């Protein structure tokens, strides 16, 4: 794990259950890399998903997440509206969802 600590949505856990152990391990490694610098090679989502970031996991799939520190500093709390915001440290990355390209 890097400087940032992850928290995960239950939906993300459900998504992992559909994958092979090999793919899950790969994603765990990619999240570990992400946590060392969650701004590297990542971009904001747009429209109604302002305040959330995405990173390509491979040619088709993207991981959607929120950097709590950035959310607070950039005034994105009104977009993300997390109920437990006050109890979550700045160095948290909330991993929300994998967009599996072939599903859409």
């Amino acid at each position, binding site marked *: 794990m890097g400087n940032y600590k992850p928290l*995960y949505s239950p939906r993300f856990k459900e998504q992992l259950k559909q994958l092979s152990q090999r793919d899950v391990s790969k994603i765990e490694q990619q999240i570990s890399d992400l946590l060392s610098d969650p701004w590297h090679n990542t971009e904001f989502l747009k429209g109604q998903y302002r305040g959330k970031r995405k990173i390509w996991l491979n040619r088709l799939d993207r991981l959607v997440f929120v950097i709590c520190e950035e959310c607070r500093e950039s005034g994105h709390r009104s977009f993300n509206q997390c109920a437990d915001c006050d109890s979550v440290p700045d160095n948290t990355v909330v991993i929300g969802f994998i967009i599996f390209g072939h599903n859409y």
Partner: protein
Amino acid sequence: MRTSKEKTTDRLLVLYTINDCYERHNLRALSETKVQKLVFLSEKRLIDNRIKAFNYHFIRLLHPTFSSELRNDLTSFISLGYLSEPWLGQTNRMTMILEDFNDVFQRNRHILSIIDDVISKYASVPTDRLVQIVYRMPWLSKTVIDLKIGVPMLYPLKEEKAREVFDITEDELADLEICLNPKLSQDLDQAFDEMRKGRLLSHAEVFGKL
């Protein structure tokens, strides 16, 4: 069948059209029939100029042109909060998309000017009169009213036949699809709802006990 690119472009342009009716023409409400006519007339004008932008299939029906793909898009827009009921009103979600993809609109000013012309001409026309105008439109050697119910009228222009194509990058398309693909948007909304409610799991809970 429309391609994924065609569907996403269509959805963006429909939101643009509806927003334009409210913002530039001060309409206070929009019916589905009027939106169907405005998109039909815009698509026809664009195709007449060999411009590929709107890609809906339209057939001759009772009012008198109709696209089931457009109806499905409008229904999805309402269920996902891009438009409000009952009169296809503006919402924050819709405004955010139009603001964040403004670069796409700036790059396609010529195409949008054609859509703007159609909206300027017809948006303020009462819907029943607009329906009559479309009924009386010339269509090949007849008028629209003479066409049999169910006859195909408009379909997507092939890119190789187009003189101009709506310009949107692959990255913009990928971003737009996240916002405008109904199934994806619904899945994302559910995941973010869980985040909002604070139901978050630790690393060990997710990767330790699979």
